[in-house]
């Protein structure tokens, strides 16, 4: 950095100069604390990973005949769960993300200010509804409410594979579970999108408006590009929750060990987390390892999904607008 060795200051100069201060204690403490916290996360994660791998190994080497449901192989057991996990989370995200962006925009740029604050508050509150309650609501209110619509869909649009019959008799299908998941992750995603949208520099909004942009054009020019990393972050948080949600899915879904894209039938693919919740209480021996192995798989799925998201965010980092 500097080519100053030649002019090493004299002893006297060093005394005179107040520039050469001791390393600042606050800075050291603060940056170390931050560093240690970051490392603590790595440590915790390493521990979790070690735990998952160590506890999974017995399942990998075990005879599949000992597993619940007697699958032909380990993958036969895991694969439908992987499918169900990704499928339900995707459905949830596809339904919830546009809505979340819509609500966030409504609050940040459409609603009157007073109303917006109130709405923001209500949405935040909903982020706190425990998953058990979502489960209760899903069983008691949502499933019966959507059943007529499902019947209508199978009768009239049954030729579309997604809506193929026979329709479930209780409405507790993967679509219902995905709706519950969507509703669950909606508040989190909305809250993050809203905060980011509100932070859009006024300068940029004004720039767009002064060019004669309509409100929507202003949003596409200034708000959404600025909020893009935040939207992706929020979506990832939501997706993480949807992928890992346990209780609500376990309570609402009518699962089977199958792979199907049909949305409205009684037999639905199960998710990894819900399957753990359903099977764990009665499992013992190698089946516990099996379930933990599925947990490891979920872990890896999340890893992959997040890597993709990060890649997308970083690809246009120069254009992020973050300073």
């Amino acid at each position, binding site marked *: 950095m500097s080519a100053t060795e030649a002019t090493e200051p004299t002893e006297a100069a060093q005394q005179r100069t107040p520039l050469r201060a001791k390393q600042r204690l606050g800075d050291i403490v603060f940056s170390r604390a*931050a560093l240690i916290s970051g490392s603590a996360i790595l440590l915790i994660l390493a521990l979790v990973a070690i735990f998952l791998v160590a506890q999974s190994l017995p399942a990998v080497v075990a005879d599949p005949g000992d597993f619940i449901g007697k699958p032909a192989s380990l993958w036969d057991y895991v694969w439908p769960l992987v499918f169900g996990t990704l499928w339900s989370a995707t459905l949830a995200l596809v339904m919830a993300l546009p809505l979340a962006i819509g609500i966030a925009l409504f609050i940040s740029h459409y609603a009157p200010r007073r109303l917006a604050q109130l709405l923001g508050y209500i949405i935040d509150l909903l982020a706190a509804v425990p998953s058990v309650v979502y489960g209760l609501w899903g069983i008691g209110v949502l499933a019966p409410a959507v059943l007529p619509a499902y019947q209508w869909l199978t009768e009239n649009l049954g030729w579309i594979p997604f809506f193929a019959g026979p329709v479930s008799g209780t409405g507790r299908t993967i679509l219902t579970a995905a709706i519950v998941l969507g509703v669950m992750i909606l508040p989190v995603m909305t809250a993050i999108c809203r905060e980011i949208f509100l932070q859009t520099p006024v300068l940029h909004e004004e720039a767009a408006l002064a060019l004669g942009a309509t409100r929507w054009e202003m949003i596409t020019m200034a708000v959404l590009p600025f909020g893009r990393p935040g939207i992706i972050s929020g979506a990832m948080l939501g997706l993480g929750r949807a992928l890992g949600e346990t209780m609500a899915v376990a309570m609402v879904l009518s699962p089977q060990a199958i792979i199907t894209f049909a949305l409205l039938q009684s037999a639905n693919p199960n998710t990894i987390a819900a399957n753990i919740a359903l099977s764990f209480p009665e499992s013992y021996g190698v089946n516990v390892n099996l379930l933990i192995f599925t947990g490891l798989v979920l872990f890896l799925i999340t890893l992959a999904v997040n890597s993709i998201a990060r890649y997308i965010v970083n690809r246009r980092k120069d254009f992020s607008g973050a300073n």
Partner: protein
Amino acid sequence: MTATQAPAGITNSLTQGRLHPRTPWVILGLSLTAAAGIVSLISASTDSAFSLVGTVALGALFYLVMVVVISRQVEGSRQATDRFVTALVTGAFLVAMTPLVSLLFTVVVNGSARFDVQFFTSSMRNVVGEGGGAIHAIVGTLLMTGTAAIISIPIGLLTAIYLVEYGRGPLARAITFFVDVMTGIPSIVAGLFAYALFALFFDPGIRMGFAGAIALSVLMIPVVVRSCEEMLRVVPNELREASYALGVPKWLTILNVVLPTSAAGIATGIMLSIARVIGETAPLLIVAGFSQSMNYNLFADRMQSLPVFVFTSYSIQGVDTQAYLDRAWAGALTLILIVMLLNLIARLIARFFAPKLGR
């Protein structure tokens, strides 16, 4: 560009091609009326009940089509797009609010049956059937979530600060990446992990509130990091530079400039993270156990929490099922109210620090 529109005797060329402000409302009214007519015709011919949902959905569709078509004719395609999106955004909002309001409504209606003094003064110790309360679960939830928050918020916030203010290079990338991964740990796995960790150091029958707090922390930390990181990043560099230029060291800049500027966002983020874990059932059932009695000690014995209370009240009902269900819903309502209170506090704190925007 717009000068192509001939004034043609209209008094104000700027209003030309502009719908009257009341027009959309008229269209909406017409759409709903038309939809109601069609739906009632259908329901009369098929002998089914009049569907309000169908009416609203059909009406919304009519409105969308009509407003776009009319606006396109009168105002041009850009305004039509704007109106379309406005309708869509508002619609998205209403659609999304429906389940959320239904949910809140369900909880409030069902929860009010047992929302009484006894519920907040007694535990379930020695209670069979009716009566009893959830004070033990409330205390447990507050203790465990509080401890998890005390562990997670500093770690999470400091990590976010590290990532935004200090972190460069491979370590920061690794942390960012693994925090993402952590957001995907299923809650039940966090519970199993905490159990395995504590079983290493204690006997296999170990159940304690603190272990529950650890499990919750594993779930909470990534949410804190992710949301706080996002909020810190939008603090303009100009402010940091202004502070550095005054000879303020970095840590004081972060503490006195960056954090207060993003306080509202951080408060929201922390609220989200608390909300994320305060409703967790599965991990607590595994490591904190299940108890009917009050326990103030985080480091010994089973500790009940509200979600576990709600879940077990629902799933393990005795003969008097209604009493169990009522308690379950009252527990859910209590949980939501607790979060509401925390939210309120967070907002007050945030308002205290928040940028005084007057521009």
